[in-house]
C-alpha cells in the first residue's frame, strides 16, 4: 500500500477544475428560479378535453378519454381564505399538483368514451374564491400561465 502523490495531485487538480466550473456556472445564475407574479392576462379558456367543477370543499377535474398527457403541465390552485391571516403573504394558499401524480377517483363511460375524474380538496375553512390553472417555467423562469379560471365562492 504505497501512496502515490503524483496520482493524488492529478486527482486534486481535475477535481478543482470541476468544482471551479460548477461554481462559476452557479455564480452566473444557472439553476436559480426567479418567481414572477401570476400574469393577469392568462386565457380563461379551459384546455380541450378538460372540465372543471368547483364546490366550497373541493375541485373536480374531468379529463375526456383519460388523456392526461395533453395536460402534462403543472397545475396551480390558489385558494383565498376568508380569514386572510391563514393565507400566505400573497393573500392565498398555493397548492401545486400534476394529474400524472394523482389517482382518478372515478371512471365514467359515456357514449363509448371513457373519462377520468380527479379530485383536489381545498384547504379547510371558509374560502372566498379559488383560481385554478396550468403553468410552465420556460428556461426556469417562473411562470408562463397557460390558462387560468377563477371562481367566487362567497356569492
Amino acid at each position, binding site marked *: 500500500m504505497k*501512496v502515490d502523490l503524483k496520482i*493524488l495531485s*492529478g486527482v486534486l487538480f481535475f477535481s478543482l477544475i*470541476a468544482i471551479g466550473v*460548477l461554481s462559476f456556472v452557479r455564480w452566473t445564475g444557472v*439553476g436559480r428560479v426567479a418567481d414572477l407574479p401570476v400574469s393577469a392576462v392568462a386565457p380563461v379558456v379551459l384546455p380541450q378535453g378538460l372540465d372543471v367543477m368547483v364546490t366550497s370543499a373541493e375541485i373536480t377535474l374531468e379529463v375526456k378519454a383519460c388523456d392526461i398527457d395533453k395536460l402534462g403541465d403543472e397545475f396551480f390552485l390558489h385558494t383565498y381564505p376568508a380569514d386572510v391571516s391563514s393565507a400566505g403573504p400573497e393573500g392565498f394558499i398555493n397548492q401545486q399538483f*400534476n394529474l*400524472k401524480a394523482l389517482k382518478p377517483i372515478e371512471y365514467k363511460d359515456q357514449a363509448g368514451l371513457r373519462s377520468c375524474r380527479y379530485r383536489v380538496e381545498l384547504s379547510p375553512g371558509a374560502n372566498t374564491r379559488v383560481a385554478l390553472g396550468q403553468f410552465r417555467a420556460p428556461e426556469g423562469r417562473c411562470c408562463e400561465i397557460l390558462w387560468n379560471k377563477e371562481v367566487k365562492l362567497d356569492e
Partner: protein
Amino acid sequence: MNNLSTTDTASIVHRSFGLDVCRTIACLLVVFGHMLGHSTPHPVLAGFSFLATFGVDLFFCLSGFLIGRILMKEAAHWREQKIAGVTGFWYRRWMRTLPLYIFFFFVSLRFDWAGATTFVEQFHYLVFAQNFAWNMTDFYRLSWSLAVEEWFYYTFPLVMLLIIGLGAGIKRAAVIGIMVFLLVPFLARIGLPIQSVRYDDARYVVLYRLDAIGFGVLIAYLYTWHRPVFQSLSSFWYVPFVLAVTLIVLTRQGLPWTAGSKFEQSLFFTCSAIFFAALIPAFFNLRASRFDLINRFVRYTSLISYSIYLGHIFAFILVINVLNRYGLHERIYTNPWLVYPIFISCVYALAHLSYTFIEKPFLKLRDVDSFSKLKFLKDFQRFGAGK
C-alpha cells in the same frame, strides 16, 4: 446511447448482439415515447408516452456496464500511467460523444430556439452544467441524460484513481467507486431536494441519477471478477424482468411522485436501476436470431443509436414544419397511420446523415494511432516539398 466504441468494421466484429438488442430497445422506447408526445395519438396509445423514461434508464445501465468493463481493464495500468491513463480514457469518450452533442446544441440555438435564446445564455451546456444539482430549462432538454453520462465519465475514473493513488488495488478501487456512486445519489435524493417546477424534475438531475450508471458498473464488476454470479443473473432473468414490468405499471399509477416520503421516492429510483441493470447479463448472453433482416435492423439501429437519440426530436420538428409549409398539416398530422411512418423514416434518415458526416469522421480521427499521425506528417512534409 453513446457507448459504441469503434468504427463500423471493427465494431461489427466486437459487438455483442444481445447488447445491441438492449440498446435498440432502449433507443426505440425513447423515440416511441417522444413521438407520441409530438403527435395526436389514440387515447390508448397516449398513455404509453411515459415509457421513454425507462428507455433512458436502460441506456444508463447499459452504459455503466460497457464503460465499467473498459475502466476495470484500463485501470490495471493506471499506477504506471498516472493521470495519463484517465486523460486517455476521457479523450476517447469525448471524441465519441462531444462532436454530435455540440452539433445539436448549435442546431437547437439556430433552429429550435431561433432568436429565443443566445449562446451566451446557454454556454453552460458546453460544460454539462445545465442540470448538475438543479433543474434544467426546456432548452435542448434531451441533453439531460448526456450530462449524467459525461459527469459519470469524468468523476468515476477520478474516484477510482484516487483510491489507486492511496495504494489500493483495482478491485478495491472499483468496489469503493461503485459504492460511492450508489450511495451518494440515493442520499442526495433524500437530503437535497431541488425546488421542483414540474412534478418529475428530480428525474433529470445529474446528482440524483448517477446511481443508474453505477448499477451498470456493478454488473461489469460481477462480469469481470465474479462471472458465476453474472451467469446466475442471466439464468434468472425473469425475476428482474417481472420486477421491472411491475415498476413500469406502478409508474403508470403515479409513482414515484405519489410516494409518501423522499426516502420512498429515492428507493424507487434505486429499485428501477437495480431491476434494469440485472437484465444486462441476460441481454449479454442473447444470440442473434434466425432472421437476418431483424439482426441487421438491430445492429444498424444500435450503431446509429446515439445519432437517433440526439436527433429524433429535430426530425419530428422538421416533419411538422414541412407539413405546415406545404399545407399538409391537417391532412397528415392528425392521421397516425401516415404521420408515424414519416416520423420514423425522417428519424432514421437524419440519424444516418449525422452518423456518417459527424460521428464517424471523429471516431476515425480518434482511432488514428501515433504511428499513423507520424506517417501523415511525413507525407504532408513530402507533399510540401513537392515530392
